[in-house]
């Protein structure tokens, strides 16, 4: 390659980069991208503050979802709560009951179409998840927390998965609360955030045990599936039936 060719190539690459950037500029707005809001209830520190940014990156890289670059942060009393239909509630310890007003707002948030993923960062014990379940019982007294069976759409909404995983492997199943035919609240005890967390230098922040990097990949796949389920709900179930629907119409 001579100097002139190199300069032409460089100019073409620059033009392409500018074009790609212009394409992003054509986006209808950053606020219309999928954002996930970390629920910082009661001012408690997030145990996995870098996890969501990495999950959003992976979702954007692996799927057609236009994901935001940075997660938001809200609490249940925040006026911005109803700008973010996806909440990620991570904790490493149990907590005291939240105010009644916040319980009512949580109920309204979920009933209006919001989605909540609660993830325990505890390696031992289930204090955080138990506290979350206690609050869910207050918000939805008649709706039970149930294990999500292997045939649940969340395990096949994008990747075909056999069960739940995370930084640790405490349970093979996610749990959830189904509201109006939609699993609107998903509970994980396996520290998904721990598997996703990566620092600014590109290093994974936590070891994944016992499966190592293969298990971390599965944790990203599960995270992608959960995001996909939140946005598509039972789309996958419907898609299976389309040939039958079309045949029925032919008749």
């Amino acid at each position, binding site marked *: 390659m001579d100097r002139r060719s190199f300069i032409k190539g460089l100019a073409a690459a620059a033009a392409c980069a500018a074009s790609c950037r212009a394409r992003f500029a054509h986006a*209808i707005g950053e606020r*219309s991208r*999928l954002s996930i809001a970390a629920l910082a209830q009661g001012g408690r520190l997030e145990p996995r503050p870098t996890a969501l940014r990495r999950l959003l990156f992976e979702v954007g890289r692996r799927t*057609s979802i236009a994901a935001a670059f940075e997660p938001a942060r809200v609490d249940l009393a925040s006026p911005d*709560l109803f700008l973010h239909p996806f909440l990620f509630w991570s904790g490493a310890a149990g907590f005291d009951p939240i105010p009644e007003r916040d319980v009512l707002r949580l109920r309204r948030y979920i009933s209006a179409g919001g989605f909540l993923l609660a993830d325990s960062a505890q390696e031992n014990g289930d204090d955080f998840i138990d506290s979350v379940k206690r609050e869910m019982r207050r918000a939805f007294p008649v709706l039970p927390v149930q294990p999500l069976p292997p045939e649940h759409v969340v395990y*096949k909404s994008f990747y075909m998965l056999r069960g739940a995983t995370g930084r640790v492997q405490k349970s093979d199943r996610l749990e959830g609360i189904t509201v109006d035919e939609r699993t609107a609240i998903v509970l994980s005890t396996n520290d998904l955030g721990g598997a996703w967390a990566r620092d600014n230098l590109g290093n994974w922040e936590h070891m994944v045990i016992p499966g190592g990097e293969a298990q971390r990949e599965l944790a990203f796949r599960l995270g992608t599936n959960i995001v996909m389920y939140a946005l598509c709900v039972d789309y996958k179930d419907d898609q299976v039936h389309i040939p039958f629907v079309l045949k029925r119409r032919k008749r």
Partner: protein
Amino acid sequence: MSPPLPPGGGVAFNAWGVELLTPFGPVLAAAAAFLAIAGLALSLRGLHTFLLGWQRAALAVLRTAAVLAALAVFLEPAVVYKKVSRVRSRVAVLADTSSSMALPASAGGPTRGDVVAAWTRRSAGDLQELSARYVLSYHTFDADVRQVAADAAAQAAASPAGRGTDVLRAIDAVAGGEVPLSAIIVLTDGADRADLVRAFDGSSGAFRDPVSGFLRNLGAPVHVFIPGSDAAAPDVAVSSLSVPHVAFTGVETDLGAIISAGGFGGAEIPVTLRSGGQVIQTRTVRIAPGRPEQRVAFSLTPSKAAAGVVSVSAPVLSSDVEPENNTAHAVLRVVRDRTRVLQVAGGPSWDVRFLRQFLKKSPGVDLISFFILRTLESQVNAPDDELSLIPFPTDEVFRGHIETFDVVVFQDFNFSPYGMHGYLPGLARFVENGGGLLVVGGNRSLSTGEYRASAIDHVLPVTLGAGDSAVSTDAFQPVLTAAGEVHPVTALGADPAGCRALWRNTPAMNGLNVAAAVRVGASVLLAHPFLKSGDQPAPLLAVREHGRGRVAVLMTDESWRFEFSEAAFGESRLYRLFYDGMLRWLAGDPAFERVRVDDAITADPGAPPALRGAVRGADFRPVPEAAVRVSLRPTDDRVSAGAAGGPPSLEGSTGPDGRFALPAAGVPPGAYAAELTVTKNGAEIARASREIIIDTRDPEKTVPHPNIALMKALAAASGGAVHFVPKDSLSSLRLPDRAREVVDKKEHRPLWDRAWIIPALCLTLAAEWFLRRRWGQQ
């Protein structure tokens, strides 16, 4: 006993009696009398036996006299003088003056009205005799009731012209009143068209409640005099055709007709159901003797969603006196049982999720979704067998089944990377043929997609630009336009003010696909507050009609905030109302048709026959002063054969409110396909096709024979009987006499009001006391 002298004053009293004027009421009076008599009896029993007989008798007389005097003071007896008169009960005579009485009473004979009028005149002697025993009142009735003089009733019966027959209303009008009713005499053919016939169960020959209860409690027999004889004039008629309010494609629909065949007892009559002129079914009806009406049931499975005319007809038999009533028409509205929606999304997003949830939850929607879950650039880190992605049957849906959908939604979708350009001409044809297309904006849609200069570009209500000016990422508050206040997609409030208030509080939108311009004929319903597309406000929502279909573009992917962000302030109906209106408009809901035409031209009392309807513009505002022309093509063989001078056409113009009434006098009755063309200032602004019925016949004359079964049931329910005119006469009637006596005037003369009665009471008591003591008693 002769009464005391009556009071003066010149009143001729003819009866008298005794009454008690005591103010204490009958109970206290009786109690006082009982106590007084009981006390007297005890006191007499207690007289000592050693008194001489005449002494005991004297005391008994004194005590009795004292008690009677006390009772007289307490009870205040008086003589009452009365003037009593005898009030005769009533007999009401009801003469039917509806136009069915102008039909012949027998084949080739005088009209029913003439028969009744002549019979009434001949019955003058019988009526005179009745009037000696009863108070006769005369009334004429059709749909209304009027009291008339005796001679006027016969005159009115001879010239019947009333629209409608309501026998029950006429009976109800004469049933009340102070004077008791002995009987109701009804002179009618029984061709009732109101509540009486509706409550009649032909199979049991009885009425359903509340009519049954009303007749049972009437308290007077109804005697019906029917002109003609029990042998009805021979006629076959389809007296009614009932169709459901709405039918669904692919769903079997029941229709019912009542075949009336008076004079053809025992005959078997083939009855045919036609739809759009095609024979659907034929049923054979056997007319049982004495049961001239038979119900026949049909079933039909519509294949096409449209309003069409169905007809039931019976053949014209020899000696059939009225061939015109052998066919009945009705408009059957057929709709899809569910609105079929195809939702294609360029990728999962909240906008996609909320719209899908809305569509899935809508009970009237059959949804197929197609979401692109990964792009060509996606790095999934897994082989295909570890992915759950199922290939969407794109070719089958877009080429083989696109016509089976009512609405297609492209949501933030760029078709270019997936090689779908080949399907776009078919999608444009889908719209031209009547389909609905909604294009929702977003990162991959409209100008940021590749819609510009595509095969569906020309169907959109906006033209698309390119470059950075094609999007705006600034938040803005949508503005409802004047067109949006009246268009069914956005006119969500009860009135324009309510509609404006509903939209004023919407959450801010965070981005807009900016159109280059709005196409001519399109309407902008929601707009950006200050950005422009050409010389108009930049549309957020624009709609237009293209061909026979409808297209809407929503130039953002933020409408989900109408549902979710609004929930922060409580439950919001905006999102559901908005998309419900959008879906119904896109699917061509008949309620949103711009050209509305009545299904039928019927005989309207007091007004010439006319085809009525209304025209609204593409912006759904009424179109005044538009020329409306309707070409009518008969779909009824009978009309085609009888029509002369080519297919008729109707013409007229709309009024200030967009309504029109096109005179239709002289158009033969029957079923027609109507082609409407609306022009304004020489330009065509709307076109529509409908099937309509023209039936300007007098409904009173559709069933020419008397309804004897109905009248027999009426008479039986009230204790009366059916008679035939002129064979039967009034003299044979045995009517109950419910006359009663009425006291016109009465006066009292008190018996106790004498000056001596108190001293007499005192003297009697004193004498009894004196003698008792003198004779050694306590």
